[in-house]
């Protein structure tokens, strides 16, 4: 047991250090950052905001991790979020019950995943392009549903998902925590994790070993679609309306970034869901930190870029070698004979 904890800790150490650094840096600039208090039976404070606001990206990152582990990528998640938010809003406003609405919305997310999966696994289209199709068309579909307007709703149940709280935590946090643990358990307690990694590393060898690669690939995109659907519901519930134009816009990039910050290689193979979740939280911590810092918005992107580069450099396999290389004076290398000639 202790050894398992230790393996996890070593795997997550760079992410934990990065997160701690950012939290420390922000709390120096803004001392109230670490304050937590209980208000209306719910925890309240900037740290909770990070967990809460990070919910969509955390969820997207969970699905994205698995897709990336198969050597794929899913650019459509932002659009799928928009579609699912729109579906949920239009169903609930047209009088369907909450249960039906949620089920139907999740089904739509799954359907989007199946579409992507078929393009990748069966039609053998490169993942970036395959999912680009839905990224472009998906937002159109979402707007078609809402006709370009923000579809507002007043269903208390649906709104609760966005801004209610459970056990002192905001619902979105509860949802991603539960869902993340569920996915991680399913993936690691079953053989899925290993099979997915095998497919991501060497699809041909896996197929020859009897792994059902097409099904696994489709399943990965389905999970991603499902995650996007949940994220879409949360995003819509949060603002009590489906904003097809802006929901999830560019979030696919944040999700991919989260996975990479979490240390999963874009070349597929080994993955860690916990690390990706941490990655997403790190990114949200950066965003929230920027908002709290009070800099003019013109500087947002530069600050974000600088912090990301810093984190990635810290994580990069070459960093330590490069560092030792720099610290050894170059003069130590004596000229070779060939150069002397």
């Amino acid at each position: 047991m202790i050894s398992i904890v230790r393996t996890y800790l070593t795997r997550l150490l760079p992410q934990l250090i990065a997160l701690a650094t950012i939290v420390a840096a922000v709390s120096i600039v803004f001392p109230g950052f670490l304050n937590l208090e209980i208000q209306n039976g719910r925890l309240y404070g900037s740290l909770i905001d990070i967990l809460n606001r990070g919910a969509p990206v955390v969820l997207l990152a969970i699905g994205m991790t698995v897709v990336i582990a198969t050597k794929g990528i899913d650019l459509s998640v932002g659009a799928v979020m928009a579609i699912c938010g729109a579906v949920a809003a239009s169903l609930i406003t047209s009088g369907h019950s909450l249960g039906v609405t949620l089920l139907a919305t999740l089904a739509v997310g799954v359907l989007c995943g199946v579409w992507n999966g078929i393009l990748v696994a069966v039609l053998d289209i490169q993942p970036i392009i395959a999912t680009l199709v839905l990224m472009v068309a998906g937002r159109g579909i979402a707007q078609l549903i809402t006709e370009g307007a923000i579809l507002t709703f007043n269903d208390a149940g649906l709104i609760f998902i966005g801004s209610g709280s459970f056990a002192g935590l905001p619902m979105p946090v509860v949802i991603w925590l539960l869902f993340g643990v569920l996915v991680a358990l399913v993936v690691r307690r079953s053989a899925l994790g290993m099979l997915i990694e095998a497919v991501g590393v060497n699809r041909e060898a896996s197929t020859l070993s009897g792994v059902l690669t097409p099904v696994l690939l489709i399943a990965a995109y389905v999970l991603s679609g499902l995650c996007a659907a949940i994220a879409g519901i949360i995003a819509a519930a949060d603002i009590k309306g489906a904003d097809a134009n802006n929901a999830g816009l560019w979030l696919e990039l944040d999700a991919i970034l989260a996975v990479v910050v979490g240390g999963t290689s874009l070349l597929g193979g080994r993955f860690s869901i916990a690390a990706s979740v941490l990655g997403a939280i790190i990114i949200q911590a950066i965003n929230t930190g920027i908002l709290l810092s009070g800099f003019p918005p013109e500087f947002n992107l530069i600050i974000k870029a600088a912090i990301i580069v810093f984190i990635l450099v810290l994580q990069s396999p070459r960093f330590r070698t490069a560092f030792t290389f720099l610290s050894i004076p170059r003069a130590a290398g004596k000229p070779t004979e060939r150069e002397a000639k």
Partner: protein
Amino acid sequence: MQTSDNILSASRIEKGFPGTRALDKVDFHLRRGEVHALLGENGAGKSTLIKCLTGAYRRDGGSILLDGAEVDPRDTFDAQRLGIGTVYQEVNLLPNLTVAENLFLGRQPRRFGMIDTKAMNRRARELLAEYELELDVTRDLASYSVAIQQVVAIARAVDLSGKVLILDEPTASLDAHEVAMLFRIVRRLKARGLGIVFITHFLEQVYEIADRITVLRNGQVVGTRDTAELTRRDLIAMMIGRELAAEIQSARPDAVEGEPRYSFRNYGRRGHVAPFDLDVRAGEVVGMAGLLGSGRTETAEILFGAHRADSGTAEIDGRPVNLSSPRAAIRRKFGFCPEDRKTAGIVGDLSVRENIVLALQARRGWTRPISRAEQNRLADHYIRALDIRTADREKPIKLLSGGNQQKAILARWLATEPELLILDEPTRGIDVGAHAEIVRLIETLREKGMSLIVISSELEELVAYSTRIVVLRDRAHVAELSGDRITAHQIVEAIAAANERGAS
């Protein structure tokens, strides 16, 4: 011993990898005008030594003298400029470039700063003509067979080597004819005064071409001898550190009688292999012989469902079965070790343990995971049983030496307890010790009643363990040998006969 006629001298080369000491103060001296065989078991450190000499790896210690002057190639480009041409093991050339581009990468002839494609192609054709190859050099390398690619790699290395030519298992995927041609060229270079390093697991080839032999074991030099003074027995003892009981058992198994368990009728696939009939009985080893590109691999792939057959029927124990995918085949207890282990065999980033349990796990389905304890047990069992050299079972398999990777893949299939095991070149790139072990393993499996189909380019080996041999030529099954007709001579005859038939 360091004399002035050494063209390349490496002293006290050291190289370590996490968890492994791959080279431990290795001395290696190559003379002008000699062919120097570098031998050792799988994982002994031969390829690592080569890579340290040519700058592909940064060595941890030691010095290199080329032509009496100290050199320190920073990368392979540097080594090439110094006049060291190398054919690396497995990593060959770039499949997406044309043959000519592969040959002249980095030194394309130029006119007015632009590559002179015409001149390049012409020179490529001239170069390959020396190897009796007439190729369309403007086609992508990928469109040629592995053997041809290997020859192109050799041609490139030879052309680059002003002083030293290093060949790391160049003959693994060549047949006798091409090996002879390679040796002619090596002798010519030798006469020109080049130093040639030759790594192989084929001992006959060593005795045919090498002047001296250096043996590595566990990253250390066991010794350097003149070939003429070293008997085969002693050489093997040097390599594996003990006497090998018998290299290959000469007692050939008797033919197996009875009803065939597996029977394929008119089985084939257009463009891959012509329809054939094939029967395999329990406890039988069917060997497949043929020249490179004769369709052996294609046959194996169709039998295993990696490519779907488009004609004919398959039956197991008289019942028709559908073998449309590897999964379907695996469900019928088939196993298949592919020939190209790097792209179709190993799952590089995963550990040895995961690679071994992969097929078994895939068959059980994802909902029934093999417990970690059981995985460890399986992995440890096969690491011991097949003598897989690895620091531990959690090492990523891509870090193992080639021969040990091959054994791990064999273990993957043995773990599924197959009833029909198809092995495509199972002994390619495997050292003598392991070679003998695999041959022994094939025999044990056969005795246990397993059916095997084994593809090999080594006729001696095929003859030793096959109960029957199918001969292929030009993507068609042309003959079947059994009983007393199973001899290397007969196989060659069968191929030649088919050749005449084809010519008439």
